[in-house]
């Protein structure tokens, strides 16, 4: 595999957001909430299919 020069990965990014403080925790909570919501309604707004 030839990786990108550096792939920071979603986990690597989000973990830093999370550790960054209260505002960061809110971001991650919001993302989880969004996941639950799209799962319940079957599909999110158009164009966000990757979030299933």
């Amino acid at each position, binding site marked *: *595999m*030839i*990786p990108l*020069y*550096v*792939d*920071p*990965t*979603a*986990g*690597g*990014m*989000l*973990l*830093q*957001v*999370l*550790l*960054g*403080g209260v*505002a*960061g925790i809110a*971001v*991650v909570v*919001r*993302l*989880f909430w*969004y*996941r639950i919501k799209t799962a319940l309604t079957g599909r*999110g707004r158009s*164009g*966000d299919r*990757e*979030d299933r």
Partner: protein
Amino acid sequence: MTERPTADPGSFRDPDNRVFTADRQVFRVFNRRDAADIERLIRSEAFEDMVELGMVVSTEVLEPADIPGSITSLPDPALVVRHERIPFISYPYEWSFEMLKDAAALTLDLATRLLDHDYILKDATPYNVQFAGARPVFIDVGSFEPYEEGPPWDGYNQFCRLFLNPLLYERYVGQNFQHLLRSSLDGVDPGELRAMLPLRSKWTKTVFTNVVLQDSLSRRFEASAKASSEVSGHVIKRGAIRRMIRGLRSSAAKQRSQVRRSSWSDYESDNTYDQRSEDAKREFVESVLKRTQPGVVWDLGSNTGAYSLIAARHAGYVVAFDRDPQVVDAFYTRLRADPGGPTNVLPLVMDLVNPSPGQGWGHTERKSLADRGNADFFLALALMHHMVIAGEVPIDSILEWLASVAPEGVIEFVPREDPMARRLLLRRSRSHGEYSADGFAEALGRYFTVGDRAELPNGRILYSVVRKV
């Protein structure tokens, strides 16, 4: 100054700067728009301090007139610097546990210092660190870039994969990490490590945050456009980045290897050498080295380095290879602990029966041992019986290889009646009948001219040899 510059194949991934060697010197060429930022940093006092402290390889900005013609002819060289040459290039899968830890600490200390001066490391890989003797030094000045507050640190995940996770593996799985890094140049993915770690480790803060949580977030949001846009809209304060780096620094520093001590760890105190034989061996080895005054010595099967230390007194540089990570770690730790000790000895983990291959893109990104140059002198002391009996390599093949390593050296022959050789012969289906003092002497003559020969009181035989060409 007419030799064509050779691009270092290990640096090709970074499009903004590349390394060239020409006339045995190392140059780094920046051709990007922010060469000016790098130049400002390199010319700053902060950078000078980092070089002075030995954290960063010494670097000088070349004036146009001093740039070798072969390099000015490259497309668009905005900035050319010259680096001090590291005597022997090594890779993290050849380092011991404490070496990897020290390289991690250096990387993070540097990241913190840079942040103080509005710069940051754009990556965090041990391939940016080299060892000059037992001292880690950061070599990739091209990884420095101006810091702007807001985004997460790009080096975080890479730091985990290539530094923290191998350390955690050795701590909690209790196995040596080298084979993981040797087989995966990208290191160990948090998800991969998570599957291997015992449950009890998962409640530690370090593992929970950097392995479990990071992996869970990756799994859930890897393909999420929403997550990417949230991250890019979010500002992470400089202080938070600093705090995270401090946390990683202490997480790495507190890891201890939990690999069980190997049978060779106590070799120095627990060998079959009587004092007289040992003194005679030391004297023989030292007298040959003293007479030869070699540039680079390779001590093959160095164990904890007793003979490397003797060689260091008479040679320019000594690379000490042993396949056992525990003995390499012991030697490294001893060198680090002794501030007045030799600065010209580099201990490395290397199984000489299966040495590091050429790896990565085109087999050249990480060089094989054979492609990293040769020595001027080798020591092969109490090693042959391991390679022949345990490694099943024919004597002739070993001698042929030794002759390719260096033009001269010292070889110790351990007879099959020796307790150590007998130990190796246990449980072997092959009797290795060809392994005899006479057979060895005869084979030796096919590749080398013997200078001095000494039979020790314990029956072992030392030869000083010069290769036949």
